[in-house]
């Protein structure tokens, strides 16, 4: 028995495979493990779209709010204030103010301002609209990620897909309730607005249509608890959640959960100014288009903090605080694709594919043993090493094992022996031709090599295409196939060659071809 470089590399590969696959097999605390795909461990996969059109609309709305605030502060009188999805227009009662207003509007990014006598209009430029839409997607990704990070699941994945789609993957969701909570947290707009109640017309609300309200620049909003109760509020909010610095869950004096929030300096100033000027009127706390409370303003409120009370459970209040803290979604999101797998189904799939893997494995190993004798044993060593190496490489690179991925491993077991079948057949052939054992082994390997390489590379081409164009679980299939093919080149070609070289003198001495290669002679 002689050591050679092939056997050394093979031994190192086996050690590598054993060491790095152990954490996954034994499920140890330490060490990198193979991640199970959502289809095996249960979880939620969603592809979300972003309604970016609404992002520009809300941008215009907040510009409108700032114009309102500015004109009130500077005592500029404006009339016929109108805004739609992408422009704001109004008229100045005193054209002397046009210079001041022009200067103020000039500071708004990406806006086209036209001042024509008393008529002023502002619209967003096409590049600004594009930018706003892109920002809306960026912001949605960031916001959803922030929210999920605080939700308490292990390693949520939030990523951009394509230009304007968001991929969300939540592994380890155990119950229906948990999934529901996560989905509500993700999709919640969490748009907080403080709005002034239109006290002049509030008495007529029951006879007013939405169109009537709009003609006064008002909105009719429902109460969050009781949709029968309606409020008439000024359409342009006093301020919105963008000025929020913090939100947390607290309790009121009756020990009911509520949300405490605080505003930044600018927000606090606007809030203070407004409450100072509107003592005796009501202020509506509006969240996602529903009025949570509308307390009377008793005095000027400085300091910039407030509360949102409503009837929610502790869990709901907690999630709401998370949503508010992580910021509002500039644009609503909608569901494009969803894959949800319960943990019990995942466990069943693991069990079934393990049975198939072990069953297939035993069949192949038994077959090789009967057909090739010792050559079969050597091929089987390579096959087993191959399995460990696949697991180890997947664990090291953090690859995900999916159900199709398991199928890929099963298939690799069938195909990995192919190389050894080709080699063994070549060696048998050369022995029959009366070659020496040394020549039979060496030529057997070199003759087989070309075919094995070509065959494996073409399969690899198909696997790579599958990886690039595949989605989700299918990518997992491409990964295990590719790793399996590469590992089989190492184990089945290099590894077994090394073993033969090491045993060559023994094989020559024994002259028992039936024992070594399963043939007569």
């Amino acid at each position, binding site marked *: 028995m002689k050591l050679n470089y092939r056997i050394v590399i093979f031994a190192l590969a086996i050690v590598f495979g054993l060491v790095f696959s152990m954490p996954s097999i034994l499920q140890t605390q330490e060490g990198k493990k193979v991640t199970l795909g959502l289809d095996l461990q249960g979880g939620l996969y969603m592809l979300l779209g972003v309604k970016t059109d609404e992002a520009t609309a809300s941008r215009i709305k907040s510009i409108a709010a700032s114009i309102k605030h500015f004109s009130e502060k500077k005592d500029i009188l404006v009339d016929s204030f109108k805004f739609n999805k992408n422009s704001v227009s109004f008229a100045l009662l005193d054209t002397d103010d046009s210079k001041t207003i022009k200067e103020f509007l000039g500071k708004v990014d990406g806006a086209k301002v036209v001042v024509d006598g008393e008529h002023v209009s502002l619209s967003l430029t096409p590049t600004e609209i594009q930018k706003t839409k892109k920002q809306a997607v960026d912001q949605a990704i960031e916001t959803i990620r922030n929210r999920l990070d605080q939700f308490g699941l292990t390693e949520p994945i939030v990523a951009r897909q394509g230009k304007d789609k968001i991929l969300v993957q939540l592994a380890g969701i155990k119950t229906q309730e948990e999934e529901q909570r996560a989905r509500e947290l993700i999709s919640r707009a969490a748009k907080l607005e403080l709005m002034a109640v239109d006290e002049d017309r509030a008495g007529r609300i029951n006879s007013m249509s939405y169109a009537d309200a709009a003609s006064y620049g008002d909105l009719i909003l429902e109460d969050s608890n009781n949709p029968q109760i309606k409020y008439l509020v000024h359409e342009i909010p006093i301020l919105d959640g963008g000025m929020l610095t913090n939100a947390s869950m607290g309790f009121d004096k009756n020990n009911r959960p509520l949300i405490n929030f605080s505003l930044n300096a600018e927000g606090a100033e606007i809030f203070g100014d407004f409450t100072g000027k509107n003592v005796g009127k009501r202020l509506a706390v509006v969240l996602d288009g529903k009025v949570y409370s509308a307390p009377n303003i008793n005095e000027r409120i400085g300091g910039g903090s407030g509360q949102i009370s409503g009837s929610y459970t502790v869990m709901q209040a907690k999630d709401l605080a998370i949503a508010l803290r992580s910021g509002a979604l500039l644009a609503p999101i909608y569901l494009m694709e969803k894959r949800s797998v319960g943990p019990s189904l995942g466990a069943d799939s693991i069990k079934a594919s393990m049975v198939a893997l072990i069953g297939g494995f035993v069949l192949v190993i038994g077959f090789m043993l009967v057909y090739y004798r010792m050559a079969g044993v050597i091929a089987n060593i390579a096959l087993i090493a191959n399995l460990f190496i696949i697991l180890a490489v997947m664990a090291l690179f953090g690859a995900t094992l999916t159900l199709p991925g398991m*199928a890929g491993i*099963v298939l690799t077991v069938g195909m990995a022996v192919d190389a050894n079948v080709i080699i063994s057949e070549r060696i*048998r052939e050369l022995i029959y031709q009366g070659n020496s054992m040394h020549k039979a082994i060496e030529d057997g390997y070199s003759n087989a090599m070309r075919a094995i390489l070509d065959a494996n590379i073409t399969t690899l081409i*198909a696997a790579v295409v599958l990886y690039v164009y595949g989605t989700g679980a299918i990518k997992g299939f491409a990964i295990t196939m590719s790793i399996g093919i590469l590992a089989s080149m190492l184990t089945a070609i290099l590894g077994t060659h090394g073993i033969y070289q090491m045993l060559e003198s023994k094989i020559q001495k024994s002259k028992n071809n039936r024992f070594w290669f399963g043939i007569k002679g």
Partner: protein
Amino acid sequence: MEFFKYTRTFNFMGKSKIAIVFSILLVLSSYVVLATKGLNYGVDFAGGTVVQVKYDKPAPIDEMRAKLKSNNIFDGSSISEFGSPQEVVIRMKTTTGSVTTDIGDLTRKSLKGTGNYEVRRVDIVGPKVGSELKEKGIMSLVLAVMGILIYVAFRFEWRFAVASVVALVHDVSISLGAISLVGIDVNLDVLAAILTILGYSLNDTIIVFDRIREGITNSRNVNLAETINESITRTLARTTLTSLTTFFVVFTLFMFGGEIIHAFAFTLLVGIVVGTYSSIFVASPILLWFGFDVKNYHVKLADKAKREAEKNKMRAQFESGVM
């Protein structure tokens, strides 16, 4: 143990006419089935919703149907058993866009009162995503075939490449015909299986072609049919063995891998059988009929060897400092 002894050469090419007639019939009938019955696209490609529900007793399918009638969002839905009497899948064409309350939630609610059940899987694929996945799927098939074609043309010769691609088209056509005949839902996993068949069938073809190439290069025999027969005979043990081992594992996957992997395993089973057959009886005869010129190939090889030798000579001269 030995299945085949290399004592005599089988005359495969002599039977190739019968085989080709058989193949053409199979492919044509596959197309007839595909044209009349069509492919049964699943949610991945057609869009729609699949809800998998498991009961603690045999699923009350009639009762479930009655319950689903209450909401017209479930119009055109179908319920079928999935692996066991306790488990069913509900398939529908409709999808919803709301993140918080989707069609899966609606289904769960509607089934209330039909017994103890657990919703184990919900797949919702919006129409836009479905058509995107379809586009990507077709793209991946085309790219895989092209990549393989280029590689084989580069490593062998263009006639080998065309012959192997004809064999691939043959295999994929028959597999698709079988899928259509059995009425399997065509989803992403079936596409993955078809791509695997591409790789596998080609694997087989290449092993045979490699031997043919070797036979052509090493022997002075210019009768291509004889060389092909000899090469196929020599690789027959390997072809049978590998096909058997692969068939074994896929068969266990089919039997024990669970309902979800069924379509995938079935497609592979068909593909392995057809792929093995085609590498012997489709790819090789085509090579013969394309009039692959052995003499010409020998001349080319000799030229190449000559060029190589000259290059080596130049290099040797350069290294020894003559130039």
